[in-house]
């Protein structure tokens, strides 16, 4: 056992604790230094984790797995964290003296996501999940004087705790029937029993809540609207990807193929279809961009779930590929929304009116990111959806791919509704929307990645292909 293989996780844990402690110890002026330090630390860890990508090891008899699947998601979480920190720049000033704790908690949430993506058994998975969600409870309620934020935090806590309890009850039933919490041993001991079946269904319900799949999606719009925008972004890209990482590993290693008499992929297929349809239809009537993006993120979770349903090399590659490009497209859209909210104090669609005359760059970036979310070529979203739906068709789920395609067309309507407000709408205020250096960098990274990965998806999809090899 070589502890140095855990260096990425250890560094993230140390960085998070260090930022928390330094933020408390230093006077107000030192806090900006701590915030810079947090960002630089994350970038350094990202650079290290790229060099450590192909490491492979199994710790404590398989409790913790270092493999390319985990490494891929670690890259995703770290890049998402860095982008969110960059774009949060100006928004952070609202937190005044509490800004360092904000960074510290964000880093700890990242650590929780990493543990989830690499866990080889359920205790580790649960601890990682709770580290992530408890950090997010606090971050969601971070605007103490804002009524929406406090309410969102409390709602998230109650619903999150209930969903964890449901997930745990499912795990306890699986444990009671198989006598183990290790994924590989569960697969070996899996036999068709009613209690075990109930356990698997409860586990699906618990995960469905975390990745906001219909009918467990009710919390998403409320929490996304109430939370501070950077946290909404991180919730939608980071916590969702972590949920998918854990879901894929649990199902591919522990449950899939163990007993063919129970076809869980049909259950997931129905959930995916419902999620795509309901998420997109409710998004049509939204007047608040944060809420619109929340419903759009529900629909996107449905698309990604299509890849899990397919569970073949194309579909799983699509899951990983789409999760990564979703980080860039969604963060780009939210970064523009952040800039607009900092400027106008509102997130309704009317706040975006005339943005093309005020800041043509922001309007263009928002449109590109939205088109990518809708899956229009040549943006990256098209390539991602191609992998997902091709996987579904290959595995005999043609109807699911058709639903996905039709609903993608429907989604263009509400995505372009925002663009329409930006390009045709009028606004008395024609001073440009100011962005900080950090958020400009984040915006450029997002838009370049969205376009480049759409035109040239080869390298990333190859990387995703390596990452899923351990599951096939």
């Amino acid at each position, binding site marked *: 056992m070589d502890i140095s293989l855990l260096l990425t996780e250890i560094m993230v844990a140390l960085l998070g604790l260090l930022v928390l402690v330094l933020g408390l110890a230093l006077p107000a002026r030192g806090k900006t230094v701590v915030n810079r330090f947090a960002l630089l630390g994350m970038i350094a860890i990202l650079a290290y984790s790229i060099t450590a990508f192909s490491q492979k090891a199994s710790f404590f008899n398989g409790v913790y797995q270092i493999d390319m699947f985990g490494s891929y998601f670690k890259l995703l979480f770290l890049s998402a964290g860095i982008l969110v920190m960059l774009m949060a720049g100006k928004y952070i000033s609202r937190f005044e003296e509490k800004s360092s704790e904000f960074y510290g908690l964000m880093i700890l949430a990242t650590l929780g996501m990493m543990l989830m993506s690499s866990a080889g058994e359920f205790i580790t998975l649960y601890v990682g999940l709770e580290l992530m969600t408890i950090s997010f409870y606090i971050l969601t309620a971070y605007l103490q004087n804002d009524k929406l934020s406090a309410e969102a935090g*409390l709602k998230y806590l*109650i619903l999150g*705790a209930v969903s964890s309890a449901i997930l745990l*009850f499912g795990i306890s039933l699986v444990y*009671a029937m198989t006598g183990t919490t290790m994924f590989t041993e569960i697969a070996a001991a899996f036999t068709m029993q009613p209690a075990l079946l109930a356990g698997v269904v409860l586990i699906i319900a618990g995960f469905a809540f975390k990745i906001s799949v219909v009918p467990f999606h009710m919390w998403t719009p*409320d929490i996304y609207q109430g939370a501070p925008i950077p946290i909404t972004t991180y919730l939608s890209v980071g916590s969702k990807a972590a949920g998918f990482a854990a879901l894929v590993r649990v199902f591919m290693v522990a449950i899939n193929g163990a007993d063919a008499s129970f076809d869980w992929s049909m259950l997931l297929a129905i959930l995916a279809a419902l999620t795509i349809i309901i998420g997109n239809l409710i998004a049509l009537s939204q007047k608040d961009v944060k809420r619109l993006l929340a419903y759009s993120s529900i629909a996107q979770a449905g698309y990604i779930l299509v890849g899990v349903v397919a569970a073949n090399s194309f579909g799983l590659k699509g899951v990983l590929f789409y999760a990564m490009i979703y980080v860039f497209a969604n963060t780009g859209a939210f970064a523009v929304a952040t800039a607009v909210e900092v400027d106008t104090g509102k997130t309704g669609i009317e706040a975006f009116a005339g943005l093309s005359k005020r800041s043509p760059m922001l309007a263009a970036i928002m449109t590109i990111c939205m088109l990518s979310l809708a899956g229009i070529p040549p943006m990256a979203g098209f390539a991602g959806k191609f992998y997902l739906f091709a996987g579904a068709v290959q595995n005999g789920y043609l109807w699911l791919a058709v639903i996905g395609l039709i609903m993608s067309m429907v989604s263009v309507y509400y995505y372009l509704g925002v663009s329409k407000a930006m390009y045709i709408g009028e606004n008395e205020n024609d001073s440009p929307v100011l962005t900080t250096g950090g958020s400009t960098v984040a915006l450029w990274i997002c838009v370049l990645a969205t376009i480049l990965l759409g035109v040239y998806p080869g390298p990333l999809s190859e990387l995703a292909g390596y990452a899923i090899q351990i599951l096939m």
Partner: protein
Amino acid sequence: MIGLPHYILLSAVIFSIGVYGVLTRRNAIAVLMSVELMLNAVNINFVAANKFMNDAAAVGQLFSVFIIVVAAAEIAVGLALVISIYQQRKSVDLNDFNLLKW
């Protein structure tokens, strides 16, 4: 003779009482208590399963210790949030928290 199914039945009943409490109680504190009930039902399951399935490896007992610790952290954050929202609105009734709606 009391076996594993009895314990699972007991914990399923307690879990359902917890779910019922979460769905019907309107007081935030009472809802948090119901969540505790759900988590403790899970603990019963784990400890009983540990005894009957795999006595030598104490994985189930270990899991329930982890659950107790994490639940304590969760409730600490939960009560802090309840206090902060009470200071804003002078209420812990969930029906009063209705600013966020579709």
